[in-house]
């Protein structure tokens, strides 16, 4: 078949050319400024060690980042070699056997684990006693507020309780609306994605509830405090109308940040990363303050533990190089740089005492306390399934398709069923 011959040849050459050269591939997503900074980091790493790193860029959306990593790992692909994982996936990825245990590398290079937040390492990074990942940065939900607007309307301090927040936000929104139709009192993430769980965890914990695992390992969500909290979230949108109607359809981190950034919100619930971006905005410079999230009167403020951890794929063909990169990223200098440039909160505790940090980013020192006491989501192999069930019902309550009672009851039932199947 003479005609087919060259054709088959070219096909074969395509197939064989698909064996990749050995290089370190790093898979990470995030907002644009973060990705740009990663490129810088990679360049610095190359200068220091001579190792070439290829950046595989992912979308900003957390779920899509997870999808990408899970598909790659499940196919036992040699790429990516090293990647970032959300705090809640580390358990699942580790228990699926996809992470390279780091203990031997840590021992060999004398890395001092105590330099990191020990609670975070123990609760998130350890699987069956082995360290499978290391924290790159930790996160916790915060309340951002417009200092100038508060002052304008006669308030000296940001709200500490939800009751206060309601009162202040309603008043400011009403007045500001006279000039700006698009002004909202309080914006937060309510779309149906993992972020909703974080938001809910904060609301519910600050009402005295939360997402707990009882002694039998059962996940408990259906308690009166949670119902009350969910009702409050629902009311913010539909009754008090200080949060926009697309809260539960479109609002994720960036959407919320942009609303605040454009001057259309008084209060914002977001992660620390937004701080740097707001400060860079000439319209907002020096007008933005951060503080702990409010709580119900008599209860305590809560902040969901977030953050991203770095791990090495068990199927990587360049593990030593990957480990060098891990060390680089979690080094004192880089951790400090992340803090100064991206507003990230280092996973290393020793950086918080740094003098440069204390001078240029004093708020970080404030936050160290918040992070040491942040509330964590359950670290389970099948967490994503539980999360999806809960997301669905929470979102449905926010969209008024279910009452808070129904939502939490149904969620509880489905979660119980689900766990039965996924526990061995």
């Amino acid at each position, binding site marked *: *078949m003479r*005609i*087919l011959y060259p*054709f088959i040849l070219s*096909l074969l050459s*395509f*197939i064989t050319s*698909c064996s*990749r050269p050995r290089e370190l*591939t790093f*898979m990470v997503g995030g*907002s*644009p400024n973060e*990705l740009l900074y990663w*490129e810088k980091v990679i360049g610095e790493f190359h200068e220091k060690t001579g190792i070439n790193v290829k*950046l*595989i*860029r*992912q*979308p*900003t*959306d957390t779920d*899509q980042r997870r999808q*990408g990593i899970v*598909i*790659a790992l*499940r*196919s*036992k*692909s*040699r*790429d*990516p070699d090293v990647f970032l994982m959300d705090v809640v996936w580390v358990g699942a990825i580790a228990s699926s056997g996809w992470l390279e245990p780091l203990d031997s590398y840590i021992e060999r290079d004398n890395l001092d684990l105590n330099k990191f937040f020990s609670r975070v390492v123990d609760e998130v990074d350890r699987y069956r006693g082995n360290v499978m990942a290391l924290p790159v940065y930790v996160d916790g939900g915060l309340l951002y507020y417009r200092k100038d607007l508060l002052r304008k309307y006669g308030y000296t301090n940001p709200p500490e309780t939800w009751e206060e927040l309601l009162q202040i936000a309603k008043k400011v929104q009403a007045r500001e609306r006279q000039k700006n139709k698009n002004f909202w009192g309080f914006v937060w993430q309510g779309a149906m994605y993992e972020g909703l769980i974080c938001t809910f965890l904060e609301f519910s914990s600050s009402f005295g509830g939360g997402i707990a695992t009882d002694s039998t390992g059962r996940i408990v969500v259906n308690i009166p405090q949670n119902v009350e909290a969910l009702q409050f979230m629902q009311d913010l949108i539909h009754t008090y109308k200080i949060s926009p109607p697309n809260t539960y359809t479109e609002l*994720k*981190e*960036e*959407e919320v940040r*942009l609303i605040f950034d454009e001057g259309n919100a008084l209060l914002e619930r977001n992660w620390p990363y937004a701080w740097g971006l707001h400060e860079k905005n000439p319209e907002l410079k020096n007008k933005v303050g951060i503080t702990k999230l409010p709580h119900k009167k008599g209860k305590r403020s809560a902040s969901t533990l977030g953050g991203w951890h770095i791990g090495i794929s068990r199927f990587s063909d360049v593990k030593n190089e990957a480990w060098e990169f891990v060390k680089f990223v979690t080094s004192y200098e880089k951790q400090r740089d992340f803090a100064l440039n991206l507003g990230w909160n280092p996973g290393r505790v020793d950086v918080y005492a740094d003098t440069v940090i204390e001078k240029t980013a004093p708020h970080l020192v404030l936050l160290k306390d918040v992070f040491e006491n942040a509330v964590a989501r359950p670290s389970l192999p099948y967490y994503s399934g539980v999360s999806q069930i809960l997301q669905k019902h929470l979102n449905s309550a926010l969209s008024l398709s279910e009452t808070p009672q129904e939502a939490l009851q149904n969620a509880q039932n489905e979660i119980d069923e689900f766990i039965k199947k996924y526990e061995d």
Partner: protein
Amino acid sequence: MKEVYVKKILIVIGSVFFTLFVLIPVIWMLFVSFTRDLGFLQGGGVNLTLSNYINIISNKNLHMLDYLKNSIIISTITSFLVIFITGFGAYAITRFNFPGKFTIPLMMLAISIFPQISIAGYLFKIESNLRLINTYPALIFPYTAWTAPLALWILISYFSQIPRELDEAALVDGASRKNILLKIIFPLSTPGLISAFLIVFIACINELLFALLLTTDYRAQTISVGITLFQGLHGEIPWGELMASASLVTVPLIILTLFLQKYIISGLTRGGVKG
């Protein structure tokens, strides 16, 4: 007569509706691709700019050009493969008598409506074990299998229109079957080949599910995945740039379609309508 009037009115209304229906989304897409910020609908000014296009082409991290390259290569290879394989198959079915002559095409027809998800999972496993994930063959093979049925039917309907006497005559002259196929049948059914090629090509560019599951990064991902995952330079979707990427892909496709329409239409309708 009244009826002529009514007809005329219906035609006018129909045409206007039809045109709007088809064109508004496309024009909108092009328009947005040239704007910098979408607030213009709310009263902001309209800022026409080329920056969206420049950004997506020059920004290496967006990998738009990579996705385009991958799509074109994968679709082209698949289309050629399919034409060859189904060409031989269609020839056999229309020229020879053998057991399976009827059942095979019918089975292919049934296969053409298989849901992709039913195959995707296991395909993922096979390709993982063969270390094919995130390579061109990862998509080329499934695409070939998945578009072959339709191509087969198109070619069958074209080939069956070519009288068998031509074959007989050539056979008598000592030509081999292979040569008859390649030198006589193929040239005579060029419209059919082009139809099949185009339909397969467009189907491959369109495809999303396999591409999502079987590829993991820009080295093999197609433009469909690229556009789906485009959250580009902000967690919030950058509509201007997204529409610019969309236009980059769509405009050539539309032009291709407009020029080669008659092939596409005859290919689609032949296989679809009885006789």
